[in-house]
């Protein structure tokens, strides 16, 4: 049991660190997916542990939401790339003081 959770924790940490460190929007996106999947893993593990299906239901929800998010997110990234010829998030910092 602990192994699954440890893996989930590791994956989540890697994902979070990636979001914070990397500049490429695509990579950041993948890191977010990594975090989501780490959470899914945790959900499923807990589901198994408690012996009910709540966690699995939650994992499906997460997947659906993640899929929707990918659609919107990638669309945004593509349009940013079209206008700016870059996918670096630091370049897209117009929304500030």
């Amino acid at each position: 049991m602990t192994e699954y959770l440890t893996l989930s924790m590791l994956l989540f940490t890697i994902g979070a660190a990636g979001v914070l460190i990397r500049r490429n929007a695509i990579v950041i996106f993948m890191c977010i997916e990594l975090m989501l999947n780490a959470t899914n893993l945790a959900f499923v593990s807990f589901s198994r542990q408690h012996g009910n299906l709540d966690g699995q239901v939650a994992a499906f929800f997460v997947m659906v939401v993640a899929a929707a998010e990918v659609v919107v997110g990638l669309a945004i990234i593509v349009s940013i790339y079209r206008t700016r010829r870059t996918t670096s998030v630091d370049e897209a910092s117009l929304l500030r003081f």
Partner: protein
Amino acid sequence: MLDYAWLLVAIPLVSGLGLLVWGKEADRFGHLIGTAASAASFVVGLGAFVQLLARPADDRTFSKTLFTWIHAGPFHVDMAYTFDQLAALFVLLITGVGTLIHVYSIGYMAHDARRRRFFAYLNIFIAAMLTLVLASDYLVLFLGWEGVGLASYLLIGFWQHKDSAAQAATKAFVLNRVGDVGMALAIMTAFAQFGTTVISDVNASVSSASTGIATTLGLLLLLGACGKSAQVPLQAWLLDAMEGPTPVSALIHAATMVTAGVYLIVRSNGVFDASETARTAVVIVGVVTLLVGAWIGCTKDDIKKALAGSTMSQIGYMMLAAGLGPAGYAFAIFHLLTHGFFKANLFLGAGSVMHGMNDDVDMRHYGAIRAAMPVTFVTFALGYLAIIGVPPFAGFWSKDKIIETALAQSWWAGLGALIGAGVTAFYMTRLLAMTFLGQKRWLDDVHPHESPRVMTLPLVALAGLSAFGGALAIGGWITDWLAPVTGEVHEHHLPAPAWVISLVVLAVVALGVLLGLRMYAARAIPGETPADREVSIATRAGRQELYGNAINDAVAVRPTRHLVRTLVYVDGAGLDAFVTGVADRLGDSADALRKQQNGFVRSYALSMVTGALVVLAALLAVTLG
């Protein structure tokens, strides 16, 4: 008629307001309506007076409540009038002299485009003045008191296209308001103390209150009287008020309104009887003013201002008499009546002279008008004899009594009054000599001519009253008549027999006349006012009205102006700056915090992670700890 005495006020009020609202169509006959209204009021007053005469002597107070003016909690004021012996005399003076002056004004204002409005204001004045003297309640009296102030304001500033007239009007109103503070506080004190503001009730109750209350009330009323009657220290407005048309000076600023202060004190005799201090204060004010006014009268070359100084001085006599208590009240009123006659006469005479001299008021440009304006001269001379107190003219009877009573009570008041009589004779002789006697000093283009009949007839009537007004004192009629209102006169102890005093007074008067003749009739008078450095210090001071304006400036005007300027600054740079400062500081801190929004997604993510970690740590700390 007594039941309808409210018509006294209603007729001129309706006429005055009507003339204002009616508009230009009434220009042709407005003056006639105004005069008729005043005359109608006089007829009503006469009817009421006759009715009062017919009543038994102990039942000559007629009161009637018209409606409740104000009622809230214990505060209750009725619109009510009291027609008694004192009010009756005033009603006749106001409407009688008022009507004569209305008639005179028809001629005097004939060429003024705004004559209708002038008559409307005069009518409003008559209505307000009658309200003042008929009021049963101090607050109703105050209504009339402020009403005459308003009329005086409007009429002083009648020629308001002149800055000087507008300024004089404002000054008169504001100085009167200073006096009104005293009036207002007196009424409030009466209400707080006795729970009523009815004049008779307050005066009846004063004796049961402490002397301190009586003194307070007395001094506050005196302050009000000083404002309205141009007594020291609130005297400075009266000379400026001469900016108004001359009939106004005659009616409002000589015969009636300015004497309202004396009326107030006599009417409040219960208060003043109860306080020695207040009476003494009245006497001091009276003596000081009678000397100050006379002094100013000696130095002015402006005929109206010289007469205005004289008015101050004569009202000083009335004040002095009123301050002497029951012994003096009746004489104060007596002098008030005779003064109303002869001073209106003198002012209208001066107006007649100005009318003939192209509205020039400088006596240096007069001289030898006697021949050109015989009627004016004769009537003016009668007024002159009356004011300086030559027997048997009206002024002698009233002034002599005041000096006598003053001497009986305190030597300094009597002495002041005696000196005043001499100075009065001097400045009036100067005025008469400079205007009617001596050599012509006329400016070019001046062709004096007698005024039209409509102006001289009132002069003749007033001259007659000046000559025979003393008849009121025959057999002590006026003292007996007023006794129920003012209290019985007790025999007083005189330092010398009455006839000796009269002789002394006459000697002093003769001295003043001789001196005046010597200086102004026997010698040629320069056609221009001598420069200040050529005249004595006393003359210089008199010309400056004894520095009344300078004192007001230093004591009140300039400090107020500084205070206002400081406060305006404090309001903007202090209070408002504090409020806007708080807003600005909030804005500044928002600006500082705004810098956190740097637009870098990663830094937002970092703060989210940090936040999540903090929350997590807190949860752990709570659950574990």
